[in-house]
């Protein structure tokens, strides 16, 4: 038996009201808000956030032997986001990392590959992430519809929550939605023909095939996690297949958006939150073809409370939203900031967040050192993982440091076990920062320099 053993989804905290987009262009608003990545987020950092939620416990991170990253908006054409995410999660180096891309089906494709890898015995535990920060062209309908998100699933053999019992796949080279290597924005064709011949035809076909193969009827399926290109067509598809509308896991257009590769995962996560032992969950993704995956929920699955992140923030204007987007795409180079010698030398502290514990005086200190900061001891200094949660000890709000949104909040943190850390505070309204506030470390895009994207830790309120 192979299936999903853990799962988490991630939605960025910023919301952009669609009215602000519509006002900008004098267009009709679709209402609600879309979830948008902060200027310091990208597909890689979102995937890290989702992954870190399932990697909390050391036993888990030590046993993961592959990490997959699926996205159509990876920050690099050449450089594996999966390798960097694995390092940020402090996974072992002796694992397989793999990036999947090219299609909105990349997520389910990665999931199917993970299942195959575990079934065949090649791997025992695969962490699959899917993440996208897609851009619809200014003034397009997609600009309103698209949202940003990520999700992570762990595939394994033990303590399975949902077993994969059947799957089907369909390939198609139909032109409906694409992005060339030279394009920043996704191109979407919208017409009744496009929806019918592309999305509907493929999704209906693949769903019917997998139901037939598993010898199940639509009425027997408890949850239908059906991807949607526009937040509406999935209802038409469901009707055609014969699913009652209440079985559909709702695509969060109103407070999220159509998110690309992570969408089927996010819908699956929602279904898993609500599912009970014996339930069937059908996941269908669409993008240059369609994938269908059929899960049965096991009795290992415990109810999980639906938590809502209440710390959302409003993007104040369309102009600021554009500035957020442009930061990750075209921020000025900061000059060469770090040689690869330095990067490698400091990888353990800057990426994996290792600190030193002095066995003589028990002080936990960062960055790692060969001489204890408190007692000058040089023997018995241990490398340990830095705790990633703590409180704000003090802070400032800087208006001098160039950033897409001023001021930049910088804080000294008192982390668990007494270590101190210093970093920017992100995903926060500067007026709300307080000494004593609870925060957790998060990986974010810091700046550009020397032709590289530079990532480092910031903290965000929890």
């Amino acid at each position, binding site marked *: 038996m192979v299936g999903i053993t853990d799962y988490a989804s991630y939605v960025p905290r910023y919301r952009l009201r669609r009215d602000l987009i519509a006002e900008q262009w004098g267009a009709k608003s679709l209402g609600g808000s879309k979830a948008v990545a902060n200027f310091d987020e990208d597909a890689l950092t979102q995937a890290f956030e989702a992954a870190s939620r399932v990697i909390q416990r050391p036993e888990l991170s030590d046993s993961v032997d592959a990490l997959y990253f699926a996205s159509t908006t990876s920050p690099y054409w050449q450089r594996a986001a999966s390798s960097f995410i694995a390092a940020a999660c402090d996974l072992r180096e002796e694992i397989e990392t793999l990036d999947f891309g090219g299609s909105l089906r990349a997520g389910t494709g990665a999931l199917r590959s993970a299942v195959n890898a575990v079934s065949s015995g090649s791997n025992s535990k695969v962490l699959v992430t899917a993440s996208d920060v897609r851009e619809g062209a200014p003034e397009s309908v997609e600009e309103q519809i698209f949202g940003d998100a990520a999700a992570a699933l762990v595939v394994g053999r033990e303590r399975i929550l949902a077993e994969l019992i059947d799957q089907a796949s369909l390939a198609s080279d139909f032109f409906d939605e694409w992005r060339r290597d030279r394009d920043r924005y996704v191109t979407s064709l919208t017409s009744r023909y496009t929806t019918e011949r592309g999305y509907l035809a493929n999704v209906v076909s693949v769903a019917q095939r997998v139901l037939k193969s598993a010898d199940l009827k639509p009425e027997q399926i408890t949850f239908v996690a059906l991807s949607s290109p526009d937040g509406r067509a999935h209802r038409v598809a469901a009707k055609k297949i014969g699913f009652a509308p209440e079985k559909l896991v709702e695509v969060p257009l109103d407070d999220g958006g159509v998110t690309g590769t992570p969408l089927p995962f996010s819908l699956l996560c929602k279904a898993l939150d609500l599912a009970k032992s014996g339930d069937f969950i059908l996941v269908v993704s669409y993008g240059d073809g369609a994938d269908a995956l059929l899960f049965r929920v096991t009795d290992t699955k415990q109810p999980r409370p639906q938590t809502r992140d209440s710390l959302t923030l409003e993007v104040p204007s369309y102009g600021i939203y554009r500035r957020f987007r442009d930061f990750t795409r075209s921020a000025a180079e900061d000059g060469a*900031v*770090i040689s690869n010698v*330095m990067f490698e030398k400091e990888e353990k502290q*800057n990426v994996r967040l290792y600190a030193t514990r002095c066995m003589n005086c028990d*002080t*936990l*200190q*960062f*960055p790692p050192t060969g001489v204890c*900061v*408190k007692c000058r001891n040089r023997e018995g200094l241990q490398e340990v993982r830095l705790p990633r949660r703590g409180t704000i*000890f*003090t*802070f*400032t*709000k*800087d*208006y*001098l*440091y160039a950033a897409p949104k001023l*001021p*930049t909040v*910088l*804080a*000294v943190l008192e982390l668990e076990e*007494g*270590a*101190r*850390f*210093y970093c*920017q505070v992100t995903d926060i309204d500067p007026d709300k920062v307080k*000494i004593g506030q609870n925060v957790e470390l998060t990986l974010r895009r*810091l*700046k550009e*320099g020397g032709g590289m994207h*530079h990532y*480092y830790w910031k903290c965000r309120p929890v």
Partner: protein
Amino acid sequence: MTESIKDRVAIIGVGCTKFGDNFDLSYEEMAAEAAFLALKDAGIEADQLGAAWLGTFSPGQGHGKASVSLADAIRLYNRPITRVENFCATGTDAFRNASMAVAAGIYDVVLVLGVEKLKDRPARGLASEGNHAYQHDGSTAPGIFALAATRYLEEFGIERDALAKVAVKNHYNGSLNPKAHFQMEVTEEQVLSAPMVAYPFGLFDCCPTTDGAAAAIICRADIAGRFRDDYVLVKGLGLSVTSGRPWFEPGYNYTGFQATSTAALEAYQMAGIKDPLKELDLAEVHDCFTWTELSNYEDLGFCKKGEGAHFVGEGRSSLEGDLPVNTSGGLKSSGHPIGASGVRMIYEITTQLRGGAGARQVRDPKLGLVHNLGGPGSVACVVILGQP
């Protein structure tokens, strides 16, 4: 410390350029102006200098990187010259090193020159010189001190108006100082409503970005009388260093600077000072930001930790107060051309001790203190000067 420097070194000449937006002056031109003013003040020729020390923090456009910048500025060749750098304590540390060489009897008469040209660079503020690529990203000079100010304000229940009082006092004093960058008074209202720079510091809580140079000529105390009657004596010196990364230091309380306390202790011990508030007549302290001056009162022992706001609020550090602080207008009015600041402070105390400070003259001063603080409060240097 095994020996005191007390009464072994004398200041026989000082010079100082106007501090300000010296756009049309080069590094070398300012260096020469300050040095030749000091030489004239001492009544000596450059040939009589046995050695020299140059304090510049940030070399730019080829100036200030090494000793040659002083040599070429005043054509002092074939002499031992050392460039000193110790963050914002550069100027006083140059003075300190020169004093120790003179006290040891290695050189008779030496020049200390502090020079800094900040306005030639394109970027605003001191920003990210020497920052780690990731670990200090986002740090600016105001931001670094603001971290301490935020914690201090919270812990002692102080509001921004206490900080504003420092700005008002120092701007008033600066208005009486022809060498100061800004010679304008400000009101508390102006300070509180100025644009924010790094919370809790607004524009008027921060010292300006400034060019300037200052110089001092020192000699062995036993020959000082040859040059002038009103020479000033070095009574004590102290320097102390703490961590350059206080934000990583487990348990650091962020409400004051131990480097200042330790440096002051050393200087007080050398000078034989037991009660600085009573025995000092004036002090030039490092007010890079208004809050820093409050901490300085406390760290230098003028009052207890947390009472700095009362000290300034009650007028005890104003020109007519118990212990006038920053009679020159401080860094607030003079600006902070880093390498020059410490030497400018020495210029001010020397001028005051000689009775030459005009409208800002303190009555009959005997002992004065200079305090210079660098990095994120990691390097402090204290010099005590007094009448023979």
